[in-house]
Every structure is written in structure tokens, then in C-alpha cells.
């Protein structure tokens, strides 16, 4: 690790050239000089000899460069040296060189190979004389250069072992991933929640174009939650087969609750209906005495996995920060002045803490920039804004909802007293007598654990019913002209027929004449239906 000192020791010792190449080249000789100097009392003649040698070395390296200077030096001196030194040491040196080469499967530069074979004694960067000394000394001790009899660790140049196919083996990659999974499981067991509680996910939903889209996303998120989970889906307008089959295929424990009222088209009314649906779900939880942590997951929201880890910590009622993604639904951006952009608070809704970490207030979404342009009807191409405090930002301990529960605090209203008279419940704080007892989660609200998003299909959009293309789409672009650049290669006709058949079989259509053009399966295939 100290090898970079070689040039510096150079500067300290000799008055030789400052050029790096000559400095490097002379380092070897100078190392020899140092060792030579330390060996014993030196006669002045020998020191001038070394100085001349050093000067010669410098000259050679000036003309030929660092590496070639060493090469020349060894050519001039090492052959004589080999003859002069004992035969055993030279053969040992050669042998050692050959052993190091045979262990190489490939080396990074092929030139080094030839170096090793022909210049047996010259492999180590320190110069010839010192090297030979090391070999001789080692030879005298009858061992490898590290000095002691039993050591098999050889100092010097080694081959760089590269296996013939230095690429990952998929079986091993899978094994490694399994190891990591297991390690992470253990980590959770050691450092994570000691007694994980069941998560009760309350989702109000209703049948509309994007229901499958939203529910699929939420379904996949919930499948990844590492805690026992029950998904309580309240569907407005009664349960539908589509939702029921999706829940059945999900592999989750679910409770599918029908809600008698249909979902209105007005956003304000929709929010109110959703609130009533959630209350209905809470009542079901109360009836069935379900135990766990209640999370309000709207079907269009996006949840992070840390949310589910964090909600395990809730005592009675907690609040998390929700990122609000209010989008315009249009290509043009909101016209905001620079000053507005600076002063606009973060689009985050959640608890605000004071310096001692206690709940001090709430951050709500600033809807000023959107004034006058919000959507009123579902499917309108205008931004949809959240209400003051979204339900999604709150989590409850289900025991809070039970009629009787140990330790239930008195600042919690009884559920029966809420919403019975037809009053609208804006946010879960109305479930409490004293909203200041809410626990801020997620590092006191600093961590945004989920995102609120309301994306619905435009009212004038036409998506296929049930996301099945039936009847087949009309051909918009005739087969001869493809929407993508013409390719020169043309498929032979048999292959083309095969492809047609496969397609037809896939889409299970009787008539062969019509071929769907816009199916995504053919998107990446440039050779398409070019005939």
C-alpha cells in the first residue's frame, strides 16, 4: 500500500532527473543502491559505479521510456547474472516463474506473459540486483520469497485468475436472492415489530371504467404486505361479479360488503358517499369484533410498504402524512408565478409537530392555485382536489370501535353516536372527542407514506366493457401500410400465415379475414403484417 512512495523516496534520495519516467525507471536501481548501501561498509569506488549505473539507467529511460529501460537493463545484465549465480537459484527462479504462469487462465495483457517466460529473474518491480538477492537469500533458506520454510505464499507477480465464463449463473443468483430474503426476514424478526397485528384495510369502491385498474394496483400492494391482512371492500350499488371474482383470485382474506346506494356523479357527493361507506365498514368491524389496525386505503391511492410497518406502532389513533397528487388532467400546466411557486407549501397533508415531537396541528392541502378550475363531476377534465383532511391519512386501532374494550380511552366517541343522524362525516377526527390525542406517525409526519390520487376516466371516453375487446376492433390502417417505418425484410408467406393463425387462436375469433392492428402483442415486432 505504500508503493506510491517510490517516486517520492526517489526525490529525497538522489539528485537525478525529475521526469517521472526516469524517476520510475531509476527507482529500481536506486532501491538496489539503498540495499547495496545498507549491506555493509561501501568502498567509494563502488558508489561511483552505482552512480554511473544510475545515470546510464536514466539515460536509457529518457530515450526508451520506463518499461523499456527495465527491459534493456535486464537484457544487458540479467543474462550474465543468471550465469554467475548458483545454478540452483536460477533454476529455482525459472521454476517459480513457470509455476506462476501456469496458474493463469487469462491475463489482462498478453505482453506480460512473454515477460514472465523469458525473464525469469526479472519479474518483480524492484530492480535486478535486489531481486536476485532476494532469490538468493530465499534460496539459501530454501524457501519461497516470503522467507519462512512452511509458507506457500509467494511474493511477486501472480497471474490474474479469470474463469472462462465470468458471468453470473442464474441458479446462483436465485440462491443469493433467497438468502437475502431470509436475511431480511430475520432482520424483521429481530428489529421489527415484535407482535405484528392484523391489518384491516377499508376500501370504498364502485363500478366504473377505472375500477379494475385501481383495484388491481391496490391488490398487488396488499399482497406484498408482510402482516396478516383482511381487506374490507365496500362496494356502492351492491356487489358486482367482476369485483367478487377479482377478490377471489387475489389470495387475500377479504370481506365484500354491498352498500345499497349508488355512487353519485358529483365529486362532492361522491366524497360524502365514500365517507358513509367507510363508516359502514367500521360498523361491520365493530359487529364482528375484528382485531387489528384499520387502514383506510382508497382504491386509487398508492401505498408504500413502510406505511404498513409504521401503522403497527399505533396505540389508538394515528395520523400519517399523505402526498397529494392533484393533477390537471390536461396538457397545459397551471400558470403559477415564480413567487407563487416559491411560497406554495408542499402538497402534503398530515400531522404537524412542535419541537418536542407532539402534535401541534395539521398540514392541509393548499387549493388556492387551483381556484376556479376544479372538477365538479366525475370524469371532468379538471383537477380533483382533496378535502381538508383525507381519511387515508388516519389509522385506527380497531378496539377503539368496539363497544367494550380494555383501555379504551374516553376521548373516543362511541361509534353508534356518529353519523346516525345523517350528518356528514368529513374526517375521522369527528370520531374523537379530543382530536389532540392523535399520534403522529412516520417520524412525526416527516415521512410521506402514501399518495392520494384521483384519476378517473373522462366522461366521454370509450373503454371496452370489462376490458375485453368484443366485437373485434375495426381495421383502421390497411394491411399494406404499417404505422411504423417500412422494413426491408419480408416474412415468407407461410410464416405469415402461421402468425395469423396464432393470433386468431389467441383472440378466439372465427373469421380469419380481420386482423387486429392495434394489439399490444405485436407492438415490438417490426416484421408484423408486412406483405
Amino acid at each position, binding site marked *: 500500500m505504500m508503493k*506510491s512512495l517510490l517516486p517520492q523516496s526517489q526525490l529525497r534520495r538522489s539528485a537525478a532527473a525529475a521526469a517521472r519516467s526516469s524517476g520510475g525507471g531509476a527507482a529500481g536501481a536506486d532501491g538496489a543502491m539503498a540495499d547495496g548501501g545498507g*549491506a555493509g561498509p561501501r568502498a567509494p569506488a563502488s558508489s561511483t559505479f552505482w552512480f554511473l549505473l544510475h545515470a546510464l539507467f536514466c539515460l536509457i529511460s529518457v530515450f526508451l521510456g520506463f518499461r523499456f529501460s527495465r527491459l534493456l537493463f535486464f537484457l544487458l545484465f540479467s543474462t550474465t547474472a543468471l550465469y554467475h549465480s548458483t545454478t540452483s537459484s536460477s533454476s529455482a527462479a525459472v521454476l517459480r516463474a513457470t509455476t506462476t504462469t501456469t496458474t493463469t487462465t487469462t491475463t489482462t495483457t498478453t505482453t506480460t506473459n512473454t515477460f514472465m517466460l523469458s525473464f525469469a529473474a526479472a519479474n518483480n518491480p524492484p530492480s535486478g540486483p535486489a531481486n536476485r538477492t532476494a532469490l538468493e537469500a530465499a534460496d539459501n533458506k530454501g524457501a519461497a520469497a516470503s522467507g519462512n520454510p512452511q509458507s506457500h505464499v509467494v511474493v511477486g507477480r501472480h497471474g490474474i485468475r479469470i474463469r472462462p465464463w465470468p458471468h453470473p449463473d442464474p441458479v446462483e443468483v436465485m440462491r443469493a436472492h433467497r438468502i437475502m430474503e431470509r436475511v431480511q426476514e*430475520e432482520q424483521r424478526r429481530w428489529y421489527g415489530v415484535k407482535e405484528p397485528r392484523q391489518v384491516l384495510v377499508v376500501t370504498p369502491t364502485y363500478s366504473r371504467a377505472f375500477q379494475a385498474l385501481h383495484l388491481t394496483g391496490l391488490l398487488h400492494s396488499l399482497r406484498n404486505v408482510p402482516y396478516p391482512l383482511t381487506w374490507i371492500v365496500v362496494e356502492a350499488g351492491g356487489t358486482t361479479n367482476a369485483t367478487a371474482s377479482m377478490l377471489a383470485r387475489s389470495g387475500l382474506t377479504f370481506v365484500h360488503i354491498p352498500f345499497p346506494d349508488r355512487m353519485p356523479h358529483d365529486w362532492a357527493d361522491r366524497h360524502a358517499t365514500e365517507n358513509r361507506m367507510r363508516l359502514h365498514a367500521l360498523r361491520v368491524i365493530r359487529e364482528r369484533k375484528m382485531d387489528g389496525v384499520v387502514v383506510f386505503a382508497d382504491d386509487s391511492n398508492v401505498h408504500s410498504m413502510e406505511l404498513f410497518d409504521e401503522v403497527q406502532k399505533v396505540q389508538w389513533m394515528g395520523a400519517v402524512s399523505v402526498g397529494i397528487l392533484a393533477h390537471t388532467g390536461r396538457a397545459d400546466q397551471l400558470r403559477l408565478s415564480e413567487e407563487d411557486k416559491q411560497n406554495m407549501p408542499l402538497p402534503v397533508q398530515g400531522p404537524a409537530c412542535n419541537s418536542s415531537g407532539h402534535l401541534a396541528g395539521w398540514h392541509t392541502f393548499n387549493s388556492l392555485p387551483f381556484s376556479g378550475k376544479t372538477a365538479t363531476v366525475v370524469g371532468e377534465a379538471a383537477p380533483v382536489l382533496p378535502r381538508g383532511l383525507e381519511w387515508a391519512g388516519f389509522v385506527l386501532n380497531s378496539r377503539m370501535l368496539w363497544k367494550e374494550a380494555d383501555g379504551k380511552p374516553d376521548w373516543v366517541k362511541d361509534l353508534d353516536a356518529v353519523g346516525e343522524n345523517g350528518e356528514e362525516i368529513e374526517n375521522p377526527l369527528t370520531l374523537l372527542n379530543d382530536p389532540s390525542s392523535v399520534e403522529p406517525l412516520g417520524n412525526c409526519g416527516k415521512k410521506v407514506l402514501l399518495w392520494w390520487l384521483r384519476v378517473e376516466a373522462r366522461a366521454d371516453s370509450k373503454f371496452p366493457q370489462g376490458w375485453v375487446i368484443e366485437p373485434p376492433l375495426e381495421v383502421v390502417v390497411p394491411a399494406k401500410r404499417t404505422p411504423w417505418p417500412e422494413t426491408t425484410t419480408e416474412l415468407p408467406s407461410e410464416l405469415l400465415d402461421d402468425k395469423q393463425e396464432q393470433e386468431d387462436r389467441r383472440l378466439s375469433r372465427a373469421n380469419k379475414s380481420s386482423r387486429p392492428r392495434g394489439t399490444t402483442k405485436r407492438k415490438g415486432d417490426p416484421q408484423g403484417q408486412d406483405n
Partner: protein
Amino acid sequence: MTRARVVWRPTAVLLLAVASLSCVLSPPRVSAAAGAEVAGGVARRNTERIAGSAGDVLEDNPIGRLKVYIYDLPSKYNKRIVTKDPRCLHHMFAAEIFMHRFLLSSAVRTLNPEEADWFYTPVYTTCDLTPAGLPLPFKSPRMMRSAIQFISNKWPFWNRTDGADHFFVVPHDFGACFHYQEEKATERGILPMLRRATLVQTFGQKNHVCLKEGSIIIPPYAPPQKMQAHLVPPETPRSIFVYFRGLFYDNGNDPEGGYYARGARASLWENFKNNPLFDISKDHPITYYEDMQRAVFCLCPLGWAPWSPRLVEAVVFGCIPVIIADDIVLPFADAIPWEEIGVFVDEEDVPKLDSILTSIPIENILRKQRLLANPSMKKAMLFPQPAQPRDAFHQILNGLARKLPHMQSVYLQPREKHLNWTAGPAGDLKPW
């Protein structure tokens, strides 16, 4: 050329003589060390708890088991050097300075040399730094020799035992061989003056000239506060399989490759640069410590010398160290069961490293992580200021205490002399 050969032969003969001398001296110490090994091994197996205690030998308290007398050297050997270059307090060789400071205020210190079991000479030989911060070892032999001459002239204790009950902290690359280059270091061998003393060093390789029998191997200094400042919550999932940051090729000193790290690091790069399981690179990120805490395995390959602070970092951050250095002797090997904590891979098996690591049974991996999570492991690797119980300072004292009581052969008979004061290269004999 013939003249050169004539000159080298006597040196070789001399080295041989000295080597044979050390062989003569070592048998008693070998048996003592072997005894300690066996005793340590038995203690380890019996008392290792499944929850992750790494051997109760780590829990020993040295206070009361030994007494250390600190020679009062003039400040040119210690304080003045540090004042001249305070970088010495932060580099990986800083153990020598902190050991001195620890001993000055420790309960094992005695002011009465007659009752001392061990004598400590505070000389900072690794503090002569280049502008880049690397220590130059060229003056160290002279400095050490000068210090020993001072103490042998001023106090009678050195001559009483020829230094056998003295210990020195020599944390440089190859310990008391005082050179950064392995061939030169092995040529020099351990400084003749120190042939009888106990050496506390970071370098450890079996059957190597620069590792004396009875030396205490210590971890290199790693800044504890800096590491504490970068801790992440332990529940952060470990999602990196293998992690390494450092050089693979030392283009400055070894342009053709194959010499640096005996080709092992280059082999690592060539075999695994495309492997997504291996997060290896020579860039140094700001999140280096945090990344280690997110990794399952951390590679600790040899460089120019077999030891590195990576081992300390891996242990502190709970990442299983994969040690790629043939015949290496790890710190406190008689107290810490490294075989059970880390993974040892021969340098010739580096191309198969992915197979080796993925075929370790998962129970072993979890067990290693449990052992690493043991706080006594982490404590034993660190040099905190001020010193805390069971830290590396105390482990060094434990090691010294285990070597007590000194055998009678340690004390010299009248007219018996072991050390040759004129041995070594002529450059070392110059005064400092």
C-alpha cells in the same frame, strides 16, 4: 556485478544467523503461545452462547491482572511528532498514539517500575508522513533504536531481560520490519533490537518473517465517532449481496497488474464486474458506511499488505467479512473465533467466489450475523476515546495479561546476551 554478489552473501548469512537465533529463542514462547491457544479454544467452545457471545475471553477485565510501566521518553519521540503532523491522529496507524494516551490514564499503569510486569516505550514510529499522508518507514528503525538505547541507558530494565518484558506498538504495514514493500520488509526482518520484545502490530500472516511468535495482532484504527455518525436503523433490509469499494489495480505502482494484492483484487474485478450480485467499484461514495450496513457480505481482500480497516468496518456494521488473504492472522485471534464469524476464501478460489458465497447454508449465515450483532465483538474492534470497557485497548491488555507470568528464562543470566546491537543495515545504525 561480482562485487555486488560478494557483498550480498554476508548479509544473507547474517540474516540466516539471526533467523536461526530467533528459532532458538522461540520454542519456549511457541509452547506458551500454543498453550494459550488451546486454553482460549476450550474457553471459546464451552462458553459461546447461541445468542451470539463471541467468547467470554473478550469479557475479561485486565485491570488488576497486570501492571504496566510507561517509560518517560523525551517528547521528540512522541508528543513533538504529533504536534508537527496531527494527521497521525486520524489515519489507520493511529493506534500507537491512542494506546499511549490510554495507558497514561489507565488503572494498569504503575509508577513503580519494580513492580511492573510489562514496560511500554511510547515511540511513534509511524508518524513521518508524506504530503499525501502515507507514513514513511525509512527513519523508523533509527527512531526505534534510538529510543531503545535511551531506555537501556537510563533504566536497568531493558538490559535485565534484553527487552523480553517490554512491548511496543508497531502498527505499520509489515509491523516491525519497517518497510511498505513486502520483499524489502522480509529482507530486513524484524528489527534486531525487537527480537525479544512483544510486538503489538496490525500485520499478521502465518509463517512470515514479520510476524513473531507471541505478537499480539490488533485491528487497525478506524474512527469510532465517524462510524457511529453513519449508523442506519437496524431494520433497514440488507439488499446488497456482496459489497466492496477500493482499488482493483494499482496503476501507479503496479501498472501491469498481478503484483498488487497478488492478483486477487484484479481477479475479483475481472470475474465479477458484470455480476449484479456484486456491488464492487473503485469509486468512493459518500454513503460508504450506510451501504455496508445494507450488505450481507463485505469483501476484505488483501492489498499491498494483508490487513485493512475494512475488517473493522464490516464487523461494526454487521456485514459478514469475506477475507481473501492467504495465511492471514486476524486481530485477537485467540479471543475471537474468526472462522465462525467471517468467511475465508483462498486467493486461488476467487473466480469461484459467487458459488462459494451462495452455497453457504442459510443457518450459518444467520449465525454469523448473530455473532456479529454481539456488541462485545464490535467493542473489541474499536479504539474509542475515552476508552471504554472491553474495547480494543482492553483486549490488548488482556493479551498481555495472558502471557503472564514471565518465564524465568526471560531474565538474563550474567554475561548472557541475546541482542546484537550492531545487527541490521548500516543505515539503521545512524543516530536519530
